[in-house]
């Protein structure tokens, strides 16, 4: 059995976020070295602030400044920081209740080691040198030997150029494996053969194979070579250029039922003007050196397939 393939898959995207009035004020405040909380209906000051009261569900907008000093309410040691975390050296994740606040804020505490952290310890904000209106404007917390610092000032005095949006980059690292059946399919493609798998129950041939028949719910193991020729069952003419594809428009994107396959796969049609492609056109793959998949499919010159022959494959 050929080796089962594996490869890293990184899913990464910078999402934009509109902040709304409360988060806008909070992040604008951080840029100006002011920490704002919001007053809830029960009189508590919530930091970070929220838009809606967690008890009454009513809209809350009464922003109040709190101090840049506070108390650690609990913590956990991070011995191996990862990319994108607040500090590159080992640090403590802390919940800090800032002086004047009734709830705690999650952030990083820069201390030499876990022995230097304790619940109840006094800390203060270390501001980032360059602040843009983001939670990272607080570079981290650091130990603080004194009492409460005065609060940061008047929320109504914030400058007019408010931060209204942020970019929140998301990244997920996966190890992707296409599994046994698709690995065998890909291995066969390297010799320019298309090998699917037949369902033992319904006898349909899956290309690419998935290792199981989704209709019958049984494993598929019998390998069956299909094609190389096939029939265009249906298609569209693409007139808009995709960002990450180096293909001139217009081009034809077709569903192609390879001879012997139980369902169509998708490919590009070339070697014929785009406006002459038709349902039923007989095609064959065109390979380029070193490519995993056929570059495109071109007409074979055979007469078109009769509609009745491929209509079940549409």
């Amino acid at each position: 059995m050929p080796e089962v393939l594996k490869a890293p898959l990184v899913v990464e995207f910078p999402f934009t976020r509109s902040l709304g009035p409360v988060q806008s004020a909070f992040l604008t405040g951080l840029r100006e070295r002011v920490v704002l909380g919001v007053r809830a209906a029960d009189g508590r000051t919530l930091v970070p602030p929220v838009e809606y009261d967690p008890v009454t569900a009513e809209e809350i907008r009464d922003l109040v400044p709190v101090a840049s000093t506070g108390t650690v309410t609990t913590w956990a040691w991070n011995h191996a920081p990862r990319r994108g975390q607040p500090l590159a050296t080992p640090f403590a994740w802390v919940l800090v209740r800032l002086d004047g606040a009734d709830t705690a804020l999650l952030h990083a505490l820069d201390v030499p080691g876990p022995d230097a952290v304790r619940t109840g310890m006094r800390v203060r904000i270390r501001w980032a040198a360059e602040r843009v209106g983001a939670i990272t404007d607080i570079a981290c917390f650091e130990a603080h030997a004194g009492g409460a610092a005065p609060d940061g000032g008047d929320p109504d005095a914030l400058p007019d150029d408010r931060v209204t949006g942020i970019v929140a980059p998301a990244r997920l690292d996966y190890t992707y494996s296409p599994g046994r059946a698709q690995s065998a399919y890909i291995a066969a493609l390297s010799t320019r053969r298309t090998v699917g798998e037949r369902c033992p129950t319904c006898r349909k041939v899956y290309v690419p194979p998935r290792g199981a028949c989704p209709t019958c719910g049984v494993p598929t193991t019998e390998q069956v070579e299909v094609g190389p020729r096939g029939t265009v069952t249906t298609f569209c003419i693409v007139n808009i250029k995709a960002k990450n594809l180096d293909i001139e428009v217009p081009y034809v994107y077709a569903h192609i039922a390879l001879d012997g396959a139980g369902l169509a796969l998708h490919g590009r049609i070339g070697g014929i003007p785009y406006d002459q492609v038709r349902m039923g056109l007989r095609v064959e793959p065109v390979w380029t050196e070193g490519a995993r998949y056929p570059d495109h499919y071109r007409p074979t010159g055979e007469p078109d397939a009769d509609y009745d022959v491929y209509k079940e494959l549409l």
Partner: protein
Amino acid sequence: MSKEPVAVVGIGQTKHVAARRDVSIAGLVREAARRALDDAELTWADVDAVVIGKAPDFFEGVMMPELYLADALGAVGKPMLRVHTAGSVGGSTALVAANLVAARVHGTVLTLAFEKQSESNAMWGLSLPIPFQQPLLAGAGGFFAPHVRAYMRRSGAPDTVGSLVAYKDRRNALKNPYAHLHEHDITLEKVQASPMLWDPIRYSETCPSSDGACAMVLTDRAGAARAPRPPAWVLGGAMRSEPTLFAGKDAVSPQAGKDCAADVYRQAGVTDPRRDIDAVEMYVPFSWYEPMWLENLGFADEGEGWKLTEAGVTELDGDLPVNMSGGVLSTNPIGASGMIRFAEAALQVRGQAGEHQVERAGKVLGHAYGGGSQFFSMWLVGARPPMS
């Protein structure tokens, strides 16, 4: 023991637009939920549970809306859960909420679906760079366009039918203050002259990208009796799914769609949908899906759906109005689009649809689908409670 009848007593949506930069996602959902509660004349305290739906996580990167949005939706201290079924999610979310009431688990449930497409990227979310796979060559429109061509071949429909649907839906949208697209100067000629993106689909026959949210308050008989405005009663609701691709799949008229409709009709005692149902709000992201779904849902025989469109039957003043709101072709916050269909059906039977109200709206079908035509959800609502 029979099921508890379920009533829709509150409906709220935001004015759908290209970008709502003035609000957070929390602010957006709040607006729709608040309007639904106001319509029902209820407060947050009257709601027993919240059921929320949204587009697939990668679209806008919100992984746990049930966590992030609990306070905005007054759900603190209450059950809150999230439903996932791709583009049909708004419909299946409403059905999960309805089932909680029907099963007497909760008396009054707030259900809501949303999307901010301006802060999202559906195209990216649908084309992740999966190792060893060929990149998707054509995008969402390119995925559906070949199925439209297959429908045209199978039915022999003239190629103008798609433009008739787009022209109708965009005119309907002019009567709906919440619709995203308000193309006051729309003409059939303009639709037909718009560029081909994925031949046979033209630019004007595709849906926009919208920011919006939709919410409904569902309740039991006792709740309906207290409602200040006429309720819409759920007469039947069902969901079905099938794989995206499998040998024997009918991409033009998927079996799961037929089965889903048949289940709804059986529950509601509908034997002839064309005769028994007064209007349909269906999920049509590309104009040709109107005649395709008319057949799939049993309003026309196979190959005959386009004749209803061509004859004007599906116009707002036709015998079977379709997409009175302007449809997905005029408004498409993907995660909310299914629920907007369900809500429009309910608005119609309540007589609350304003300028786009149809005259006889005793029973109206709401329909949603998603993924590669693999998830279906539908409900039939009526002005009168179900027979017990």
